[in-house]
């Protein structure tokens, strides 16, 4: 899709503007193709927050939570900029799927299963698991997906360090604080997560390697370029603030992105709505202003 629009491959955008410029090119040269998909709205749930909004927010100078002070950040310039993307894509420049589709509960199926494999979508801002859809055992087998789909890291807003952004979730093995035999638990975890076992697990469960020595192992690389590309994102990935308030704030963000998409709110109004909700949810003493 990108080659048809005249974009040099492999493509690695350096700023948000690069991404939007290519989306505009696709729009201009390939009618009938949706230039870019970014998840938003309540229908896509946490996907809207994590694969959509936060992929932009964490590429600005703002985040949701400041670990150094233990406080939630108010919506600042970065928050508004991230909301502005939704306004641009869905409301001003029509670069995304139709708002009806994007806000429906089936948006991801449309994007991943109906549009992408048949060349009706240019850029999809999405997660490493999408490949699973195209495996022979997946809901939409697509043998050529590894060669047809290029993978680029999401750039930061203006290319500020570290230049790229990614959001991750996952699991870990921990020693319980009330464990009566902490050493044995620790030994177990040491064995379970050693290079050999991690490699076996990551390959068989289609996981992204978080150990460099797993990512560089031949058995891991043999899976194709996608797994290698995703592992290279691990050093700059972020994780979501895992606190009680997060699910509520996430739902609020989903609602606000949806309102930006339909044009009911401006980025400034969306940020104000978030700040009001944030204060009501976590209390003023747990909130701080966003850095500029």
């Amino acid at each position, binding site marked *: 899709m990108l080659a048809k629009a005249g974009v040099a491959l492999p493509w690695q955008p350096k700023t948000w503007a690069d991404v939007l410029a290519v989306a505009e090119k696709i729009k201009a040269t390939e009618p009938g193709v949706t230039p870019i998909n970014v998840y938003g709205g309540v229908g896509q749930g946490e996907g809207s927050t994590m694969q959509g909004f936060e992929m932009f927010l964490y590429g600005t100078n703002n985040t949701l939570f400041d670990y150094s002070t233990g406080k939630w950040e108010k919506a600042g310039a970065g928050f508004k900029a991230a909301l502005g993307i939704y306004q641009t894509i869905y409301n001003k420049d029509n670069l995304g799927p139709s708002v009806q*589709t994007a*806000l429906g509960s089936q948006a991801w199926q449309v994007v991943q299963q109906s549009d992408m494999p048949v060349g009706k979508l240019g850029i999809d801002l999405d997660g490493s698991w999408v490949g699973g859809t195209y495996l022979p055992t997946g809901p939409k087998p697509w043998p050529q997906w590894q060669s047809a789909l290029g993978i680029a890291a999401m750039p930061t807003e203006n290319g500020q360090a570290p230049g790229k952004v990614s959001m991750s979730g996952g699991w870990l093995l921990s020693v319980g604080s009330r464990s009566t035999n902490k050493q044995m638990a620790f030994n177990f975890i040491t064995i379970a997560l050693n290079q050999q076992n991690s490699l076996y697990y990551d390959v068989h469960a289609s996981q992204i390697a978080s150990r460099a020595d797993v990512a560089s192992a031949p058995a891991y690389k043999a899976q194709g370029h996608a797994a290698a590309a995703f592992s290279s994102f691990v050093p700059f990935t972020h994780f979501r603030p895992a606190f009680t308030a997060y699910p509520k704030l996430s*739902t609020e963000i989903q609602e606000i992105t*949806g309102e930006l998409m339909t044009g009911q709110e401006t980025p400034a109004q969306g940020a104000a709505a978030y700040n009001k909700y944030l204060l009501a949810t976590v209390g003023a003493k747990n909130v701080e202003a966003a850095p500029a």
Partner: protein
Amino acid sequence: MAPALGIMGLFFAGPIIWSVYIAFTNKALTGVGAQHPKWVGFANFTHMFQDPLFVHSLVLTAIFVIGSAIIGQNTLGFLIALLERGKNSFVTRALNTFIIAAWVMPEIVAGFCWYAFLYQGGTLDTFLQHFGLSQDWLYTTPMLAIIIANIWRGTAFSMLVYSAGLSDVPAELLEAAKVDGASQISLLRRVIIPLLRRSIVTNLMLITLQTLASFTLIFVLTAGGPGEASQTTPLYIYQQALQLYDISYGTAMCIVLLLIGALFSVVYIKLIRVEEVG
């Protein structure tokens, strides 16, 4: 007797008492409120009426109950019962089979049928594409979609209640009224409806309570969306209590919903004055 009472107490009264109790605490399913719930008095209830999404959900619930149950199911069920009265043709039997089939179908299946009919690319959309009206009806008209789906699903119940009620209306009374020169309309207004008061109250009460608590159908069709455009109170309770883990706020809203159901029942009984007839 004692073991039976014990079991009843444990599995019936127990959960009710527990949910009333936690509605007055800050019990949550995760975080501080999960480990050390505190008594917070009426805080959940005062918060509720300052919560624009809750108030919004109540308005939608009222529209849903009035539109789909009180107007839709009730009127349509009554009309069908009236038109079929005293007839037992092949047509009425076939019609009843369809109407009752819609009712006995599991809610999730009914929800999926309507989803397949209304979504973008679904039956209705495919048909209307020929007229240039392509759209996702669940997006453009979410409330109308869930109201119509619920009428379709629930009309059978009202029809059965009214059929039973109508079969109790003495034929000689209708004959006598006709001999006295009553028109069809006044027959309906002055003879049939007054005799059906009990059925009407029973039916309205049952379908109102049923519709107030309706969850599955809406969840399958729109999940409360787009945005919050069809987020009735049960869906909002689900979101708050089980997705955002605020179980005490959820149960507090359940209690309010229960009181609203009781209020509806009182209004019906007052309005229709069953006792006078009885």
